[in-house]
Every structure is written in structure tokens, then in C-alpha cells.
């Protein structure tokens, strides 16, 4: 290392910024890699469920398929339909891609490794930040539907906006009981709290509501109404092609991965390794095991998301709304009251 | 540069408030008028946050919390009135809604 560089790094602010930059780069590269291979996994698992083979020609087991796909999408001709609102039409896919990337900033994917905290920004408002950013996901979809200036995308966009807003409410309320138990919004505290028992055993109803809402928020089957192929052609992205379409596609998978990561962090102990006291192995191995545990849980949930998609049929729109407002919302409220009462009684005793 | 003082915050807040007020006078589209109202509310929020920062207490921030709550209710009702108005008159331009009786 040249002396100028090491002097620069010696300043506290610069070192922090450099550390954050490295973490951001690593997290984005890992996420994009995971997105690419989740798409492949989806295609292979779906084929397995339907008793087919799926893409297996490019490379061993089709492992090079994502690379071939991305080349195909990148090399396509850039077409801009004549009837769209150009500015928002081009910007909408980017807006859709932003929330999952921003959300990842607060999710701890490990304890510490070589003295570094394995989270980009451990905010005091942690979960609140996630909900703030997640609520921005609507914009990309609504703007895409509106800017396409065409009826099917517009209907798809409006549907999805209504769906996302409806399910944000039970999702937010279900997490309240987690806060009541942990006493903090900070995700590192939530993970630390689960050192003994995971929160799924203490707040199973909250987990269930959160899981269902997460499926709706990520537009996955059985709630993929915004892009219901049979009635809305392709939904909000009907008028899109090439890389712009690919961005929507990637955003959907990135959302799914982030939702899985959030479920793991909130209810399944994050990077905590169950049954084993990893501290005994020394700091480096313990940190690495934590990261490994996080990723194993994460992958399990991604597979679960895919499995559900190819197993369940789609809900009708009115059923979807009824489930959100008349079932999940009252249940979430009940859950909060019950948890608060239980905690109050425990304090009294 | 020295850190900003209370007066800097208040200047920004005052300018933001004036932009909002000017927007209410300026625009004929009721939707944008409502947005200008939001800008004014936010200017007040900014001043309250600044006072809380320099007044050594969180009470200003609590007040902002309530302002945000009221703003949410206000926008919901305001937009509902707007939609009802649109059903009656077919427009959201203030200058076209000139009758007292519909």
C-alpha cells in the first residue's frame, strides 16, 4: 500500500466510508448473483414439480444459463413504443429495483468477522426503515402502468398498488408484537434476542401473518394478480422489453430474496447457529459459521417461495382484498393485544 | 464551514413555507394546491424539528409526529372531497368550479 493511501485510510471518517463501500459492493454483488441463480433455481424446481427437466443445456446442469440469459437481454434492440410517456417509462424499472437494494442495508448477515460488523448500517430505526423503503416499491409499478399509456398495464399497475398498500398494514402490525418482545427496532438487537429461542416459537401468529403478507408484497403466487397473465396479458410490464423488462424481473426476485432475509432475521434467529455454541471455535470460525447459518436459512426460504408458487393457484382479486382486510388485519391487531397483555401479566408476576 | 445555527434552519423553513403559500395562490389544479398545503405543513415540521434540536427537548418532535398524523387524515379527506367534486363537475380546476349550486 502506498503511503498516501494508508494515510488517507488512517483518518476515521475515510476508514468508515471505505468499510461501508466495501460492504455495499460485496452485498450488491452477492445479491445480484443470488438473483441470477434464483431465477435458474425457479426454473429447475418448477420443472421438477411438473416432472420436466428444465434448462440443462448451457454448462453443467444449466449453471451457465443465467449468463446466457443476461447476454440475450443486454444485446436486444432497445425499442421505445411511440405512445408512452418516455421519461417515466424509462425511469420506472429503475425505481422498482431501488427498494430491495436499499432494504438490504440494515439486514445483518452475520455477527462480526475479523473485527467488522457484518451489516452495512445498523440503524436505530431498523425495521421502520425497511417498511419505509418497502412502501416505495409501489411507485415503480404504478408509474410503469401509467407511463405505458395502455389499458392492461394500467389495470395491472392499479391492482398492484391497491394490493401493496393493503398488505403493508397487516405486515407492519404483525411485526409490532416482535418489537414488544424485543424492546427495540434495531435488527442486531432482534437477532441478539433470539440467541436462546427463535421468535417464531414466541410469536407464531405474527410469523404467519408476516409470511402471507410477504408473499403479497412481493407479488408472488398465490397473490401475483398484478401480472395475472390470463386476464391482464402481462400486467404492468406488458409494454416493456429488453433490459427494462429484465430490471422488473430482477426486482421481483431481489424482493423475494430480501423478504426471505427479513423473515430469517425477524423470526428465525438471523445468523444465530442453533444447538451449537459457536463461540468455542474462535472468533473467525464463529463469524463464518454465523454467515453460513444465515445463508442456509435464506436459501431454505427462497426454495419455499418457489415451491409455493408452483403449488398453489391464484386468488381472485376480491378474495385477496377480503383476506387482507377482514382476516389478516383483525388477526394482527388481536396478536398485538394478546402479546401486550401477556407481557403486562408477566411484568406483574 | 461552521455548523448551521438555529437561524439557518428557520430561514430554510420560512422559505419553504413561502413556496407552499405561493403555490396555493398560484395553481388552479386542486391536486397541486393540496400538494402545496403539504409543503407548508412540512415547513412547519422543519421549524419544529429545529426548535427541538436547539431547545433541548423532544417535545417539538412529538409535535411533528402529530402534525404528520393530522396531515395523513387531512390528505385522505381532501382527496376524497376532490374525487367527489370530480364526479359532480368533471374537473379539478378551481377556476372551472365557480357555481355555488350544483
Amino acid at each position, binding site marked *: 500500500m502506498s503511503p498516501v493511501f494508508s494515510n488517507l485510510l488512517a483518518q476515521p471518517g475515510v476508514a468508515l466510508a471505505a468499510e461501508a463501500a466495501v460492504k455495499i459492493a460485496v452485498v450488491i454483488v452477492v445479491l445480484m448473483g443470488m438473483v441470477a441463480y434464483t431465477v435458474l433455481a425457479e426454473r429447475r424446481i418448477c420443472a421438477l414439480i411438473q416432472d420436466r427437466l428444465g434448462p440443462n443445456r448451457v454448462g453443467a446442469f444449466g449453471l451457465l444459463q443465467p449468463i446466457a440469459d443476461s447476454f440475450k437481454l443486454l444485446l436486444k434492440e432497445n425499442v421505445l413504443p411511440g405512445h408512452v410517456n418516455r421519461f417515466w417509462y424509462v425511469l420506472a424499472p429503475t425505481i422498482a429495483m431501488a427498494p430491495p437494494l436499499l432494504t438490504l442495508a440494515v439486514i445483518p448477515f452475520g455477527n462480526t468477522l475479523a473485527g467488522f460488523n457484518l451489516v452495512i448500517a445498523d440503524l436505530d430505526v431498523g425495521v421502520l426503515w425497511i*417498511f419505509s423503503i418497502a*412502501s416505495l416499491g409501489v411507485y415503480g409499478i404504478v408509474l410503469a402502468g401509467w407511463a405505458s399509456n395502455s389499458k392492461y398495464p394500467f389495470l395491472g399497475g392499479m391492482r398492484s398498488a391497491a394490493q401493496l398498500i393493503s398488505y403493508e398494514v397487516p405486515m407492519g402490525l404483525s411485526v409490532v408484537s416482535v418489537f414488544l418482545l424485543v424492546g427495540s427496532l434495531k435488527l442486531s438487537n432482534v437477532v441478539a434476542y433470539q440467541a436462546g429461542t427463535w421468535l417464531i416459537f414466541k410469536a407464531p401468529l405474527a410469523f404467519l401473518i408476516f409470511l402471507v403478507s410477504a408473499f403479497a408484497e412481493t407479488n408472488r403466487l398465490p397473490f401475483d394478480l398484478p401480472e395475472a397473465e390470463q386476464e391482464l396479458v402481462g400486467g404492468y410490464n406488458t409494454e416493456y422489453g429488453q433490459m427494462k423488462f429484465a430490471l422488473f424481473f430482477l426486482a421481483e426476485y431481489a424482493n423475494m430474496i430480501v423478504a426471505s432475509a427479513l423473515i430469517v432475521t425477524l423470526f428465525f434467529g438471523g445468523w444465530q447457529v442453533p444447538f451449537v455454541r459457536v463461540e468455542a471455535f474462535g472468533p473467525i470460525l464463529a463469524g463464518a459459521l454465523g454467515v453460513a447459518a444465515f445463508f442456509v436459512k435464506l436459501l431454505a426460504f427462497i426454495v419455499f417461495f418457489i415451491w409455493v408458487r408452483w403449488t398453489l393457484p391464484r386468488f381472485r382479486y376480491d378474495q385477496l382484498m377480503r383476506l387482507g382486510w377482514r382476516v389478516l388485519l383483525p388477526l394482527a391487531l388481536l396478536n398485538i393485544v394478546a402479546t401486550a397483555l401477556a407481557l403486562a401479566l408477566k411484568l406483574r408476576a | 464551514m461552521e455548523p448551521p445555527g438555529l437561524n439557518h434552519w428557520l430561514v430554510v423553513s420560512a422559505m*419553504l413555507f413561502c413556496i407552499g403559500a405561493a403555490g396555493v395562490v398560484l395553481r388552479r389544479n386542486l391536486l397541486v394546491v393540496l400538494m402545496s398545503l*403539504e409543503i407548508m405543513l412540512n415547513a412547519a415540521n422543519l421549524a419544529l424539528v429545529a426548535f427541538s434540536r436547539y431547545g433541548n427537548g423532544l417535545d417539538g*418532535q412529538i409535535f411533528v409526529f402529530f402534525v404528520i398524523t393530522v*396531515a395523513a387524515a387531512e390528505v385522505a379527506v381532501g382527496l376524497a372531497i376532490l374525487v367527489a367534486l370530480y*364526479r359532480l363537475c368533471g374537473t379539478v380546476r378551481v377556476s372551472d368550479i365557480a357555481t355555488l349550486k350544483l
Partner: protein
Amino acid sequence: MEAALFHLFSFLTLAGALLVITRRDPVNAAMLLVLTFFFMAGLFVLAHAWFLAAAQILVYAGAIMVLFLFVIMLLDAKEETRRCFGRVAGVGALAVGGALLAALAGVIRDGRLWRVPAGDAEGTTAAVGRLLFNTYLLPFEVASVLLLAATVGVIVLIRAPRRPDDAPPSA
């Protein structure tokens, strides 16, 4: 660093607000307002109002502006073909804005405000929550009633208009 960020976010907030009130297309105005709220959240962070910065994005950018966008798109509010404001309105707006600014500047010029030192209050979730659920518990409950009233009001206002055959005879 703090000063630079303060000036940057202040400039962006004010520029965003100015653009909001002068755009012809309401969709552009709404999206610019979302951006403005983000810059304001940045200012909140600089004022150590961590909780409010998150609440600002959650409520304003995530809920209120989505509602705006929804209504704009449902009403199909087109870009205004003529200029979006008349000359009289322009002069009036300048006058109102200028007069208000002059009045406010008169207050802010007070030299005592310049020397107030920054306090050490941290707007963390826990601190805000403790205050909210102790000192301000009653206002908090009243606010929830207000929200309920707004919900009921909106549902009443938005209900589909009755069909002509069961409408009461109009005068």
C-alpha cells in the same frame, strides 16, 4: 461535513418545492414532491430526529404521495395545455410569498436566535416513544380518534353515487 450536508439538503428541498408548484403535469409534481420529502428526511437526520426521518418517508413518501398519485391517475388529470397559472395569479403568488418571507425574516433577524447552542436531545425511537406514551398519551389517543373519524369520513364521501332510479326527487 454537517454544514455542507445541511446546505446541500436545504438547497435540494427548496429547489424541489419550487419545481413542484411550477410543473404542468401533476404526476411530475407529485414525484418531485416525493423527492422533496426525501431531502427533508435528510434534514431531519441532520437534526438528530432519527425516528421522524423514518416516519417522514414512511407516511409522506410511502402513503400520502401514493394516494395522490392514485387519485391523479384515476382522475386522468392531463397535463395542462395552457400555462398552469395566469399572469394575475403569478403576481399574486409572488406578492404573497414575498410578503410572508419579509414578515418571517423580520422575526429570524433577531440576533438571539443565532447564538442558541445545539441541545443534546436524540430523537431515537425509544426516546420519542417514552415521551409519547407518558406525557403525551392523551393527545396520542385523540389522534387515533381523529384517524378513525377521517377513515369513516372518506368512506362516506367516496361511496358510489346512488343509481338514478332510487335517488330522491331533486328540486
